[in-house]
C-alpha cells in the first residue's frame, strides 16, 4: 500500500499548495462572481455579474483592446525572434555571436514595470529620444515628437512587450537549434546548400512548433499582464487586468462580483491558449527526437 501511494505522497505538498491556493482561489473567485459569499455573507446564485459584464461597453472595449495588443505584441515578438535567430545563425558560432546572444537576452534582467518605465523614459514627449531628435533638428519642439506612450494605439505597451518577450521566445528556440549537430550542416553543404538554404530547409521547419507555442505563451502573458498597462496605459479603455483591478479595489463592494467574473473570463481564455500551446510543443518534441 505504501508503494502504491508513494507517487501521490511525494506530490502532495506541491499539489496541496497549488491546488488550494491557486485553484481554490480561482474557484472562490468564480463562486463569488456567481453570487455566493457576497459582501454581507449572503449567497444566492445569479449570473447577474456576467450579464452586466457582457452588456458593459467598458468591458467589451477592454476585451477588444487587450486582445488586439496581445496579438500584435506576440506576433511582432515572434517575427523579430526569428529574424534575430537567422541573423545569428548566418554569422555562425563564435565568441562574437555568443556575446551578441547574451546582449539580446539582457531585457530579461529587468522586471516588467522597470521595462515599461525605461520605454517611457525613452519615448515620452519629454523623453530622451525626443531630446536627441530636437538636437539633431528633426523635431522643432516637444510636441512635434510623436505620441508613443500613453497613446490610443498602445504603442508604448507594445514596444515594452516586444523588448521583453523577444528574448524569451529566442530562449525557447535555442535549445532546439543546439541539438542540430554540425554534421547535418556539413552534409547539406556538400550537397550544395548554402547557410541560408540550410536554415530554410532544415532549421526553420524544425523550430516552427516551438516558435508557435512560445508565441502563444507570450500572447497569454501579454493578454493577462497588469503591470505594464497599469503604468503605460490610457485611462480608457483599460486593459482587462487593470479593468478588473479597478473594479475590485476602487469600485463599490457590489462591483466585486463583476471584477471576479472578468477574472474568470480571463482565466478561461488563457487556459485555452495554454492548452493549444501545449499541443504544439508536444508536436515539436516528437519531431526533433531524431536529431
Amino acid at each position, binding site marked *: 500500500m505504501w508503494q502504491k501511494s508513494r507517487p501521490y505522497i511525494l506530490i502532495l505538498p506541491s499539489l496541496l499548495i497549488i491546488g488550494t491556493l491557486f485553484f481554490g482561489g480561482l474557484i472562490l473567485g468564480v463562486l463569488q462572481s456567481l453570487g455566493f459569499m457576497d459582501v454581507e455573507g449572503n449567497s444566492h446564485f445569479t449570473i447577474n455579474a456576467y450579464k452586466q459584464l457582457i452588456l458593459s461597453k467598458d468591458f467589451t472595449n477592454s476585451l477588444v483592446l487587450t486582445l488586439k495588443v496581445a496579438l500584435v505584441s506576440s506576433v511582432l515578438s515572434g517575427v523579430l525572434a526569428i529574424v534575430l535567430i537567422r541573423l545569428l545563425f548566418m554569422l555562425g558560432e563564435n565568441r562574437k555571436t555568443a556575446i551578441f546572444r547574451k546582449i539580446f537576452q539582457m*531585457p530579461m534582467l529587468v522586471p516588467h514595470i522597470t521595462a515599461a518605465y525605461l520605454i517611457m523614459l525613452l519615448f515620452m514627449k519629454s523623453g530622451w529620444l525626443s531630446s536627441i531628435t530636437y538636437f539633431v533638428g528633426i523635431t522643432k519642439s516637444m510636441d512635434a515628437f510623436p505620441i508613443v506612450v500613453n497613446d490610443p494605439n498602445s504603442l508604448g505597451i507594445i514596444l515594452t512587450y516586444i523588448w521583453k518577450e523577444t528574448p524569451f521566445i529566442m530562449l525557447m528556440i535555442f535549445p532546439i537549434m543546439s541539438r542540430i549537430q554540425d554534421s547535418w550542416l556539413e552534409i547539406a553543404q556538400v550537397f550544395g546548400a548554402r547557410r541560408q538554404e540550410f536554415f530554410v530547409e532544415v532549421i526553420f521547419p524544425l523550430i516552427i512548433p516551438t516558435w508557435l507555442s512560445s508565441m502563444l505563451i507570450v500572447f497569454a502573458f501579454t493578454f493577462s499582464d497588469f503591470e505594464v498597462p497599469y503604468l503605460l496605459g490610457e485611462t480608457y479603455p483599460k486593459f482587462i487586468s487593470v479593468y478588473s483591478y479597478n473594479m475590485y479595489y476602487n469600485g463599490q463592494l457590489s462591483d466585486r462580483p463583476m471584477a471576479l467574473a472578468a477574472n474568470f473570463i480571463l482565466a478561461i481564455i488563457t487556459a485555452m491558449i495554454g492548452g493549444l500551446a501545449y499541443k504544439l510543443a508536444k508536436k515539436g518534441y516528437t519531431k526533433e527526437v531524431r536529431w
Partner: protein
Amino acid sequence: MKKQGKGTYYIIIGILLLAFLLPFIPLVINSFAYNFRWPRFIPSNVTLRAFKYVFYENSNTYEAILNTLIIAISVVVIDVIIAVPAAFSLVRYEFKGKFIIKAVLFAPIIIPSFTAIMGMYVVFIRLSLTESIYGVILAHILPTLPYMLKALMVSYGTLDIALEQQAMVLGSGPISRFIYISLPHILPGIVTGASLTFLISISQYFLTFLVGGGKVITISIVMFPFISGGDNAIGSVYGLLFSSLAIINLILIDLLLKKYYKKRYFKII
C-alpha cells in the same frame, strides 16, 4: 560565406543590438542627473543626488531590499523543499491522474496568479495574511513553483535509474540514496530553478501589492511612485538597483554551475 555578405549581416545585427541596448541608456544617465529635462540629452551636471536619496535618506530602501531578499529566499527554500519530491515522482512514476496533476501544477505558468489571489482575497483577510509578509511569500509560490518543478524534472530526467538501482543493491535506503546519489546529480536543476524563482519573486509588483497592500515594502513597491510620474532620477536608481540584483543572481548561478561541472568533469559517461 563571402566576406561582403557577412558585412551586411553585421550591420543589421549591429543596429538591432543598439536598439536592444537603447532602453538602458536613459536608465544609467538619469541616475546620475539633476534637473535633467528636455531638451538636454546629456545631463549638464553629474550628481549622486538620487543615489544619496535612495541609499541614505529614504529609510524605506533598506527595508525594501531586506524584504525583497527575505521573500525571495523564503520562496526559493519552500519551492525546493516541495518541488524536489514532486519532480522525482513526476519523472519516475506513472500513475493515474498524472496528466491532470501535471496540468494543475503547471497552470500558473499560463493563467495569471492574480486571478486566483483576487478570488482568495477574502480568505486571506480572514487568515490575517493580507498586509503580512507571510501572505506575500505564499502568493509568490504560485508563479515560481512551476518553473522550479520544470528545472528539477529536467535534472531528474538525466539521472539514470540504473545508478539508483545499483545503490539499492549495495544496501542503500531511500534517504541515503537521495543524499548520496540523487542530490549531487540534481544540484544544477536546483540552482537553475532557484535562480529563476529568485528572479520572478523580486520582479513581482502586482502580487506583492495585492496581498501586501502597500504595507509589505519591496523594491518594486517603493519604486512605483517614482516611476509613475515622480522623480526620474530616483526611479532610475531603483531601476539600477533591480538590475544589479538580477545580474548578481545570474553571475552567482553561473559561477556555481561552473564550479559544479568542473568538479565532476572526470565523470564522463
